[in-house]
């Protein structure tokens, strides 16, 4: 009986790994939501299953992989520190994503302040080696335009068009109202259109 159970578990694990690799973050969110809301949050498991996706999300927000990894690590450590207050494993991914967005924002703010206060000791943050030069020209053009948008608008676009989140989910992740999400997205798209047609914002 044990053998059968293990075997089934292994099969399920393999299928799930393939499934998650293929369908990404969106599917995993629903998987977690289907879990018991009272189950304790297994951070090690959360790390294994979501680390890569969160680094990718952070990368879109902070622009270089090393900083993105810092952001995600700090988000996980923050969850670890507050684990006692996390009782809903179904909501853990949402908390994590929110933490990543907040940490990314803090990192960008820190960079700005450090640049102002610590001009000598802090290195100039040049485009990273893993920057967009390897991307197709069409993608580079879009990303350059996105880079000119205000931070909040960038966050909304990334969560909407990469994380495929609904307006309500974005509002929860960013701590703003649904109406603000809608207006920020609308302004962002209008600004992008203008920028990509050759005009300034």
């Amino acid at each position: 009986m044990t053998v059968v159970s293990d075997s089934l578990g292994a099969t399920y694990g393999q299928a799930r790994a393939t499934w998650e690799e293929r369908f990404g973050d969106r599917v995993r969110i629903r998987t977690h939501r289907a879990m018991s809301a009272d189950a304790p949050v297994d951070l090690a498991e959360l790390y294994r299953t979501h680390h890569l996706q969160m680094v990718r999300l952070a990368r879109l927000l902070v622009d270089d992989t090393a900083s993105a990894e810092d952001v995600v690590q700090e988000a996980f450590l923050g969850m670890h520190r507050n684990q006692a207050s996390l009782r809903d494993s179904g909501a853990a991914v949402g908390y994590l994503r929110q933490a990543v967005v907040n940490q990314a924002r803090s990192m960008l703010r820190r960079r700005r302040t450090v640049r102002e206060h610590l001009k000598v000791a802090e290195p100039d943050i040049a485009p990273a080696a893993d920057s967009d030069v390897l991307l197709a020209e069409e993608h580079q053009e879009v990303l350059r335009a996105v880079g000119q948008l205000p931070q909040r608008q960038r966050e909304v676009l990334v969560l909407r068009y990469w994380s495929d989140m609904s307006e309500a989910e974005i509002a929860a992740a960013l701590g703003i109202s649904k109406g603000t999400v809608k207006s920020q997205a609308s302004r962002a798209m209008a600004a992008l259109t203008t920028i990509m047609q050759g005009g300034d914002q």
Partner: protein
Amino acid sequence: MTAHDDLERRLREAFEAKASQVTPESLDRDRESDFERQLATTAARRGPRRGVLAGAGLLAAAAAAAGVLALTIQPDDNGRVVDAARTVTQSSSVTAPTSAPTASGSTGMTQPTQGTQRTAQPGPQQPQGSTTTAPSPDRATPTTTQSAPSPTTSSAEPSPSSEPVSPSAAGSTPDRSIQLAPRAAAPPLMSSDLPQASGLAPDVTYDGPVPLFATLEDGSGATYSIPMPAGTKWLVINGSGPRYRILSAPSSIADYWAAALPGQGWVQSGAGWTFPGTSYTVSLSGDVVFAGYGG
């Protein structure tokens, strides 16, 4: 397909292309083991301490209840019963302006500084006989010399910011020694007469504590003090972030930190030290000290 739909499609494709540049192979694998180690460490620490913490919590609650009771019924100098709520309010309002004690330049290292107000200068944090040989360019600070007891002997010395303020000194009711001012845990601030992070110059030798520059929640900056053995000489490594090269140290910095940093609230983590509740990190690698975020 409308122009809007087309833009959405291009956005999705561009984001996907950029995100796909991050592959499992490109990630730093050490981070996962670091995280697992932290999880394991905390789990091991939580187990046996749970009962002790519960007991301490009960004792603290009982003590607080007794304190409130005593405050409520204790008569003041005129034999009247003091209204507890009024007293607390007065004490709190007196405490707030005391957050800027003057630095005498000769006090010892203030070890137990966890809970120090971020806006306060808790006094010189220079550990021992440190001398500023090269003041920062933006400060006309002359060479200053401070002598202080060793970190192990100074822990009994109260930090200025933790000293209760007597309301009677301000012409108020008798001393209740109650302080309600919110205190955020943070490392000790760098004394204003020592090199600040914003003023460090390349190719200049400093000695004494190294600065850790931080951005606070309100966007302002603060420079925290990382203690170093007295007489340690260092310079900023230009263009490498908050890293400092140790030119000479009279004793082992690692040993010194092991004695000094825990008292300030730092916790040893892996090869360095972290400050709980923050991402501040201090570490020593060879002759290079890192004092900043992450690490």
